[in-house]
């Protein structure tokens, strides 16, 4: 059986003008920004809840083409840090409710952890 993952990432930059007491679409951008793509995979795995602590998780990916991670806010609902390089660097941070969806190199090794003393939970979907 074949599987498809359609994913869409969109952002709306806004600027606040105190004089008018309101938020506007950021005038440096002038519009909302969005992108959508389809990843076709032969297998996929969905995990609805994974506890995250300061101890880095086992790698969530092995020769995967796609990863989606959402901080679902269990435990203390702290920020979750995401690494694509097996835990060497944690460039990405997900607050409660926030998610990451991206196609990745098959050599990527995705790990998650929290800062010292923090914890949360994530759901994730991966495909290859």
């Amino acid at each position, binding site marked *: *059986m*074949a*599987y*498809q*993952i*359609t*994913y*869409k*990432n*969109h*952002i*709306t*930059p*806004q*600027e*606040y003008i*105190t004089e008018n007491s309101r*938020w506007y679409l*950021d*005038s*440096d*951008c*002038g*519009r909302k*920004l*969005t*992108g*959508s*793509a389809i990843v076709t995979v032969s297998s*996929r795995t*969905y995990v609805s809840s994974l506890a995250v602590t*300061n101890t880095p998780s086992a790698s969530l990916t092995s020769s995967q083409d796609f990863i*989606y991670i*959402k*901080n679902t806010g269990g435990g203390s609902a702290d*920020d979750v*840090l995401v690494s*694509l*390089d097996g835990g060497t*660097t*944690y*460039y*990405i*941070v997900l*607050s409660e*409710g*926030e*998610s*990451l*969806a*991206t*196609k*990745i*190199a098959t*050599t*990527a090794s995705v790990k998650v952890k*929290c*800062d010292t003393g923090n914890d949360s939970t994530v*759901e994730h*979907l991966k495909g290859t």
Partner: protein
Amino acid sequence: MADERRIITGTHIIPKEGNTMEEAVGTKWILDTHVGKTLGGKSTVTDVNKDQWHDDWTSMDHPSLTPTTTITLSPTVQSVYQLDDDTSTVKFFYMKNKGVSASITISLDSGGDWDSYSTTDASDEEWQLTTAEWQAASSNWQTYSDDTTTDFWENTTRLWEGPGFAKSAIIPPGGALYMRSGGSGGTSFTINQVHVYLGEYPTNGTSAVDIEYVIAK
């Protein structure tokens, strides 16, 4: 001048499985029964600075302004593009691949010095050479032996260590990626570390790609 800035974000995932029908009428795609729902998340990023590092913090000019900035990665010009050399720490990053056939690969690696490449370190990556001349030059360096002591190019084991793309995010045509950075306990990166590779590393893309981005400190 904006008095504050924020960025509202959203991600939407539709996992689907393909069902084969009795007759060859094509695959019927339905919601993945293993997952059983669509996925996604929303957030509002509030810690971006109201005073950005440059007007180039977005690749766009407001539609009422001209000319519109377009950044194009072309296989005939370069395969690796550095977004900017600013050293501000990134709080938020968004990029879209506006191409139709080639993917792009994102690296947040600062890269190394000219002589820091290690052939025995699997995480090191040789600078990608895109033209036939440069690909050949790699072997030329190795075979150069005019002098045994003084020639600069003589050390054949030293190759430029470019930014690492091996364990990176890929943006397919039409797709976009955003991420927030700088969390407590995490790793910060700076604007000059953001590099874009035309193609799915290490395969060079063969068609030009326009990109749009937002990179906020």
